[in-house]
């Protein structure tokens, strides 16, 4: 069973729609569960944390007891995929919402894009199709995705490059476009909106 956590993130519908498309209606009806329940998350084989919007929204995860449930699941080896703010939540926190803690699986804080880079003004949010670079060959999530493949981003805060970074993207310097360590994975881009490349990433995840 794939638990898709509902914490009122804007792209929940799109993520579920993409999973339905990949699994087929019948299998999706059996296996995909949209939930706010910590117990459902504890019982899942895979957990997806969607997200778009404000980091503050992840506060609901702690309030509903979902943070602990996810922590336990991850410790058991359950596959976890965070999308956009869902990736950022895997870090210690974000300057977007000072009082809201992330899961802290990866070290570092998410920060706003600089307003200027190398003397040139940088627009924010970073919206559009940008390329994945330095894809780690051992990544399960990005298996079959070539360096330079384009995916769709929309965000103003970004996660730093860390040991677990599985791919970087350049926009005002490099940031983590994907992270992966063992069973814990995250993507800053929107696989549900990244055409064939995005569907490949989601397929890689559901087939784990």
């Amino acid at each position, binding site marked *: 069973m794939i638990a898709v956590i509902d914490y009122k993130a804007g792209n929940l519908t799109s993520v579920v729609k993409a999973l339905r498309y990949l699994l087929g209606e019948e299998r999706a009806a059996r296996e995909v569960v949209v939930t706010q329940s910590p117990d459902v998350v504890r019982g899942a084989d895979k957990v997806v944390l969607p997200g778009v*919007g404000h980091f503050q929204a992840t506060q609901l995860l702690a309030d509903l007891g979902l943070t602990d449930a996810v922590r336990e699941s991850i410790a058991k080896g359950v596959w976890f995929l965070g999308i956009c703010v869902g990736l950022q939540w895997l870090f210690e926190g974000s300057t977007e919402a000072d009082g809201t803690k992330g899961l802290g699986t990866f070290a570092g804080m998410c920060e706003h894009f600089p307003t200027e880079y190398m003397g040139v003004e940088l627009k924010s949010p970073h919206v559009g*199709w940008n390329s994945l670079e330095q894809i780690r060959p051992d990544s399960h999530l990005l298996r079959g995705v070539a360096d330079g493949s384009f995916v*769709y981003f929309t965000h103003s805060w970004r996660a730093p490059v860390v040991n677990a970074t599985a791919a970087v993207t350049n926009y005002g310097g490099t940031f983590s476009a994907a992270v992966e360590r063992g069973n814990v994975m995250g993507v800053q881009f929107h696989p549900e909106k990244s055409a064939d490349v995005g569907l490949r990433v989601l397929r890689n995840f559901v087939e784990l």
Partner: protein
Amino acid sequence: MLTKRIIACLDVRGGRVVKGVQFVDIVDAGDPAELAHRHAAAGADEIVLLDITATHEGRGTLLDTVRRAAAKLFVPFTVGGGIRTAEDAAAVFNAGADKVSVNSSAIARPELISEIGASFGAQAVIVAIDARRGAKGAEDAEVYVSGGRKPTGLRVVEWAREAESRGAGEILLTSMDTDGMRDGFDSELTAAVSESVQIPVIASGGAGSAAHFAEVFGRGKADAALAASIFHFGITSSRELKAQLALAGVSVRLPC
């Protein structure tokens, strides 16, 4: 590298895709859901569906169209037309849209921008501006509403700045002077708006050739450009257009 986006626009009226010249002179071009899929398959980076004669009675049809179009669409999908309240926006998001575009209703009540943004995020709100300047300079271009029928007295660059400060995620700028003429975008106006805000600007109105896109991405400083009739009647596909843009040195999503 962040690429320049080619956005396929479907102008919908009464559940059918149409395309006019300078906001009138409407021609039937097909089923919106089917065309949305065709554009995505042909390499469009994004799809915009604008219900140009949105009426209260027509909302059900629109939502059904959005649902059908969104079901198997895996590129960003924007819907505009007749969105007057945060509840209208919520219905469109629930039907499968990723962003909404607001125009006249945001002029009438600018708080609408932040209201939608509060629930769905700033990235989900596009403020569409219909601009006309005639022989005047770009800085003096005026905002029009009601499908381009009513002047507002607002200057385009000022309204763009206000929309940004109220939390718009992107600006969709349509030049009514160039719309439907297939004679090129208003690059001067696009640059004036793009330089006055931090958020991305989508240029619209006047696409007729790949060279027009190259110009609005270069001189016009547009982050994305929108085209409708250029594709509907088989002049070219997004993929062909992007191949030509790549040759002209524009960074685009290829292969797509």
